[in-house]
């Protein structure tokens, strides 16, 4: 077991999969000569050469399409988007080509491709570069979507994504690249479609994915000081969603807080909340609470930037509301 950063865990996964399968290639802006904008691909060009580690022009639609075509004829490309904000340019290739080809070719072509890069707000990046766009991908049938919050999951899920026969979007988090955690030394995979219970608890279920999972753990620790045992669930996979784990937990606790750092409307979190409200209707003692970012473009002012996002205090307040421990009128 060694301590690895989230960045190095991704690097190790790429390295191992490149070594394991010659069909795996990495492509994207500055992934080769510059080691990647966030240094996830450090050292890979030297090891695997320019035919497998490819710097591309600054044209997301172009190189994403290149990757989809390559996947259809036998390669297993990993396409790095410098951030998911820029991936909006590539939506058509992902939604209309990668996600549809298996279906529309009657199973003749599958598209074993991975799209990965940081998603969600970091800091001081203002409105256009701070977006949490998970629902853009989760919305579409034909794509799998994973969102690791810890180095071990980043490693294990990226490896599973590369080996998956279908398109997988990996949502990383810029603020987590330097986060260190235990990663077993021996090779392992984290299956796509399995959530993780990070902390067991009987009173309320807290649910999120990616970076806000760390807020859940802090909120659970705060709640524990008041004798409230919160169960913390890291979804890890957003599509497919591990509903069995989710519903079993909420069935036990009767209350849920879903946290999503994206905007509230048509978000992954609002969908998860809807699923819980539907599947666990008779077992809920309170409406499912939902903590998201405020419904505004990200402000540049740092105080406002922090204020619009989910926080430990907002999660604690939502949990208490669901537990009827705080009067909403104060």
């Amino acid at each position, binding site marked *: 077991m060694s301590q690895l950063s989230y960045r190095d865990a991704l690097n190790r996964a790429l390295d191992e999969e490149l070594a394991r399968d010659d069909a795996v290639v990495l492509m994207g802006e500055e992934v080769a000569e510059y080691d990647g904008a966030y240094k996830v691909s450090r050292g890979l060009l030297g090891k695997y050469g320019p035919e497998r580690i490819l710097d591309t022009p600054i044209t997301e639609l172009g190189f994403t399409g290149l990757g989809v075509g390559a996947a259809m004829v036998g390669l297993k490309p990993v396409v790095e988007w410098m951030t998911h904000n820029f991936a909006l340019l590539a939506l058509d290739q992902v939604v209309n080509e990668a996600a549809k080809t298996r279906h529309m070719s009657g199973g003749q072509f599958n598209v074993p491709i991975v799209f990965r890069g940081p998603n969600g707000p970091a800091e001081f990046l203002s409105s256009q570069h701070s977006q949490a766009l998970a629902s853009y991908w989760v919305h579409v049938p034909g794509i799998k979507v994973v969102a690791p919050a810890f180095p071990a999951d980043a490693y294990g899920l990226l490896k599973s994504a590369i080996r998956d026969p279908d398109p997988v979007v990996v949502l990383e988090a810029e603020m987590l690249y330097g986060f260190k955690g235990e990663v077993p030394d021996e090779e392992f995979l984290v299956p796509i479609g399995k959530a993780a219970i990070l902390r067991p608890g009987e009173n309320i279920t807290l649910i999120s994915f990616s970076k806000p999972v760390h807020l859940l753990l802090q909120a659970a620790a705060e709640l524990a000081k008041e004798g409230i045992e919160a169960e913390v669930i890291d979804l890890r996979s957003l599509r497919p969603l591990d509903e069995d784990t989710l519903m079993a937990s909420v069935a036990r606790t*009767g209350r849920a807080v879903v946290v999503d750092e994206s905007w509230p*409307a048509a978000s992954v979190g609002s969908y998860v909340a809807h699923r819980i409200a539907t599947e666990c*209707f008779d077992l*809920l*003692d309170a409406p499912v609470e939902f903590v998201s970012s405020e419904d505004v473009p990200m402000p540049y002012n740092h105080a406002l930037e922090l204020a619009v996002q989910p926080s430990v205090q907002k999660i604690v307040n939502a949990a208490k509301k669901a537990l*009827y421990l705080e*009067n909403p*009128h104060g």
Partner: protein
Amino acid sequence: MAEPILMTALSPTMTEGTIAQWLAQEGQALKSGDALCEVETDKATMTYESPASGTLLKIILQAGSAAAVGQLIAVIGKPGDNWEDIAAQAKSATAPAPAPAAPAETAKPSPAPAPAKAAPVSAPPPPPAPVPVASPQSAPQLAPGVPRSSPLARKRAKEKGIDLRAIRGTGPGGRITVRDVENAHAAPAPVPAARPATPAAKGKPPVAGAAVKGLRGDRVSLSKMRAIIASRLSESYAQAPHYFVRIAIDMERLFALRKDMNQGREQSLSLNAFLLKLVAAALERHPVINASWQGDAIQYLPSADIGLAVAIEGGLITPVVRACETKGIEAIDAELGALIAKARSGTLVPEEYTGASFTISNLGAYGVEEFTAIINPPGSAILALGAVAEESVVRDGAVVPRRILHATLSSDHRVIDGAQAAAFLADLRAFIEEPARALL
């Protein structure tokens, strides 16, 4: 945001209430649970506690006026919140719906297709203001008389046989939460002691055929409960000179009354609740029965604290309903149900099962015709009830079938003389056979 305060059902049967007086004034800051107003219900005048915290923005229903359950009586919120919208919504919700225009249109012979014609009639609505993710301006309203409750609370209430209308919700807007259900009195659970009405002919003895494992040839050391039963009842039987007076009681009227009163109730009132009430009425008229031997004095007790013997795993326990003479049958029933449930789960606390001034032991569910019981101190009398069974009795010179209860009163002769015991039983029979007499 301002919130409506609705007339609420302060009793399970209340459908309408009149504001007797407002205890809070407009502009006053209130906490959830503060007295808001007094409401005259079908039964009594009760204090309506504020279901929410905030400032009382507007009193809609003035003192002296009546409103159906679910109707708006006031608005609460933050100072400066707009109460007019809520009042207007409430008005439009209760106003009779305007007659639809379509029938008039279609009544005239018209070649034009109706939908095309109907569409442009109303002016186009003003464009909606840009609102971030829509959140409803006010919670959807439930039908009058239906309390707000969480799904889990409803599920739990159903499991426990509790009528939600009898529970005060502590959640937002008075929502009944699972905690409220768990804190509420359970409705009577059917235990042998609570089912005396089964005619012996029909009823199966509840324990017949249940094979008891072990015991044969075993030596079992005394449980604490067994030891207490042994010492208390030995003491009672050895020291109190017991004598027994029996009476047969015609149950037809009481059964008819109970049937009437249970009409439309989700949860029937138990026969035991009626019996406790009528026994309390008889004790009121015979205070000598409601007494305790104290060696050098007799203590006549101030209220009818009636214990009901309940068989439980490993022995029996006698939960006590206090001051039955001051309580209605509903209250007694709810209390008894909760106590029996606690007795069976072993969670009674001492003040709930000690100090009965009078005790009832009901073995009717087992089909036994009659039996005698040992007095449960500190009381001086215990009433043993057998099964109610149809018997041939003579009424007005004719033999007719009647459902008869055989009751046996064990009395402590140091406290109660035979004639007093007999007079008590005679009055008790009169009350049971003609319950209206208990009102006199």
